[in-house]
């Protein structure tokens, strides 16, 4: 048996495979065709995708079905005869919940089989594949003064030491445990469910999924049994206060002691010198942390607003999208550059509203292939500077758009992040087909995903160079061979309109996965100091 594509036989075979009625000979014929004909393969996959989407996406059928229905034969078929009109009676409306029930049951049976102890002492998962070895993230900090390079909020933390001279910092372990430390404090991150605090004050909140979180404090292992507890450690003395739930203290394997809610143990010289009542007041600053953190964030947000009020007066500022007044009625973003009205607004297509650098700050999240912010910039430039605050969720595409002019027009630019974390700026020359790509080293490393980053690209027509910056620091500088003028024209943030291709192929899909909460375009080349200043104006903490 042989089959060719396209043909009615092919159509029938694909349908038969979906319905489970294909014969061995049909399967064999299809196998041969699909391996030889890439077009048939693509069409086959596409039909299967539609079929499996219908079978798996119950949301497609949210409207209740009519109780009775007639099945007339679709077009291309024999003319409808009276017996084509059928009633299926009162078929009950039965969404498929059975599967879930079966699963839950199976899961609980499996639980017995595996044994409770193994689930309880959840081992730390081995890291697999190309991944970061991070075990926690720094969620927030207030007045934090670090003994090492500053740690930014949202940073992924790998195993190692955090040394806080003063201030407060909250660390969320990937197991779910939340730990607040108050400087001076030293915290060693060991794994996603294990840490050591030889000195300092600490408050741990351990939700049920993270039970078994283990903290080494002085000579002690504090094993959490789903609680909130505080530790105050100095080389000579260790206090453990339990505010909720229960913990177990283990001293070098020598002895064990359970500590219940509202109990505190004071250890001196490796032995419990006394038990007393837990004292939440001793940890008041840590408990208040959330509140203080919020206040500090508000302060930073207000400073940013103030700085922008000044910046918006700059005559070289052509476009400034602050993402603050997202008008839900018109889906537009206002350009707040005071002296330039050539671009009044930008248009939002798709996108989700999201939180920006501070709780009060708005952002737009780009996720699907439709999400984009479009604007029309008519001006021509001798030089230009693009500045963007972005929180990249993942580098899903070969090319992930930052600021992209439509198509490949002369004098325009494409600014994007390659899948390997390289920042790329392409300037298109005056003749079709000429272009220059400036690529940074891979700067968008895994630990930077999920954090707010300030990215800048300077196209300097006077000094003939392209410079790119991450968080105020230059990451690449290259001679620019393509002469001015440069222009943007129709341009998108977070996506790209390829124009040339009617149906986008995978390589032309360049949507960003992440959020943007500020964009600036200047009609001149900002220098290093100015870019640095721009970064300081907007840095989250």
């Amino acid at each position, binding site marked *: 048996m042989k089959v060719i594509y396209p043909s009615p036989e092919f159509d029938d075979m694909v349908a038969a495979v979906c319905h489970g009625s294909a014969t061995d000979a049909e399967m064999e014929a299809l196998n041969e065709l699909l391996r030889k004909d890439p077009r048939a393969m693509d069409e086959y*996959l*596409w039909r299967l*995708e539609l079929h499996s989407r219908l079978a798996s*996406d119950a949301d497609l059928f949210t409207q209740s079905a009519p109780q009775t229905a007639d*099945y007339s034969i679709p077009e291309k078929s024999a003319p409808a005869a009276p017996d084509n009109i059928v009633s299926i009676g009162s*078929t009950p409306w039965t969404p498929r919940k059975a599967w879930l029930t079966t699963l839950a049951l199976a899961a609980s049976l499996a639980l017995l089989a595996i044994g409770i102890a193994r689930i309880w002492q*959840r081992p730390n*998962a081995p890291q697999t594949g190309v991944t970061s070895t991070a075990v926690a993230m720094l969620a927030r900090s207030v007045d934090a003064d670090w003994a090492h390079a500053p740690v930014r909020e949202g940073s992924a933390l790998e195993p190692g030491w955090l040394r806080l001279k003063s201030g407060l910092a909250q660390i969320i372990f990937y197991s779910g445990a939340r730990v607040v430390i108050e400087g001076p404090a030293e915290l060693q991150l060991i794994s996603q469910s294990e840490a050591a605090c030889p000195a300092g004050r600490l408050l741990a909140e351990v939700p049920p999924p993270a039970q078994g979180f283990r903290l080494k404090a002085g000579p002690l292992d504090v094993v959490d049994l789903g609680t909130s507890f505080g530790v105050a450690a100095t080389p000579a003395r260790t206090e453990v206060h339990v505010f909720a739930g229960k913990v177990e203290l283990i001293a070098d394997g020598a002895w064990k002691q359970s500590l219940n809610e509202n109990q505190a143990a004071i250890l001196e010289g490796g032995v419990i010198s006394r038990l007393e009542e837990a004292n939440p007041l001793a940890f008041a600053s840590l408990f208040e942390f959330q509140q203080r953190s919020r206040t500090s964030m508000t302060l930073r947000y207000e400073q940013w607003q103030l700085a922008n009020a000044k910046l918006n007066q700059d005559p070289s500022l052509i476009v400034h999208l602050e993402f603050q007044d997202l008008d839900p009625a018109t889906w537009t973003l206002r350009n707040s550059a005071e002296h330039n009205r050539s671009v009044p607004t930008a248009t939002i297509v798709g996108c989700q509203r999201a939180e920006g650098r501070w709780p009060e700050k708005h952002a737009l999240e780009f996720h699907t292939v439709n999400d984009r912010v479009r604007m029309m910039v008519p001006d021509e430039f001798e030089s230009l500077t693009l500045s963007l605050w972005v929180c990249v969720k993942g580098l899903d595409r070969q090319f992930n758009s930052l600021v992209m002019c439509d198509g490949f027009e002369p004098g325009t630019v494409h600014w994007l992040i390659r899948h390997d974390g390289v920042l790329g700026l392409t300037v298109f020359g005056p003749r079709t087909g000429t272009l220059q790509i400036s690529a940074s080293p891979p700067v968008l490393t895994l630990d930077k995903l999920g954090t707010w980053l300030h990215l800048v690209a300077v196209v300097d027509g006077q000094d003939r160079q392209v410079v790119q910056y991450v968080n105020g620091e230059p990451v690449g500088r290259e001679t620019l061979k393509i002469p001015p003028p440069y222009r943007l024209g129709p341009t998108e943030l977070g996506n790209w309109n390829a124009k040339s291709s009617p149906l986008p192929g995978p390589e032309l899909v360049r949507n960003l996965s992440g959020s943007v909460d500020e964009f600036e375009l200047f009609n001149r080349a900002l220098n290093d100091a100015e870019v640095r200043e721009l970064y300081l104006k907007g840095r989250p903490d």
Partner: protein
Amino acid sequence: MASECPRPLDGSSAAQQRFLTLFLRSEREIFRYVAAMVPNVTEAEDIVQETALALWEKFDSYDPSQPFTPWACRFALNKTRQWIERRRRWQKLLENGLAEELLHRRQELQPEFDARLRHLETCLKKLPASHRSLIEAYYYERTDMASLAERSGKTVAALYKMLQRIRQALQGCVERQAHQEVA
């Protein structure tokens, strides 16, 4: 041991909850991954269910900092392979490396598929009521085609032929919509 696990059931049900949350969120995607190899709905569902059990068994090796779906799909691939090994028909379809080729190509085409299928709901609504009912009966209510045939006085083959034609119509509709969008 008992003293070390004072609340084993709480702990286990929390893990179970966490697993179910993750699994149910990924279930559709795992199903579609499997269906690219074994498109028959009931068989693909059986494979996914076997996968669910395997996933739960190995849930303690899952690293929560990593996305769940790719992890789960590795198990789904194994389960599908085992399924195929026991069934000659599927072997015939997927032998000589076709299974791997399909998965690879599907991943490449995924963005395009997703873009087109955004219009699926709109296109479903445009279907004549009778066609929509049959699609719902087959894909959503999972009505047995034999009993539907009996009640409608039509042959099972005729109902399947109708389904094939309705899918064709849907395919044409989403392709047109997606095309208009980019043009």
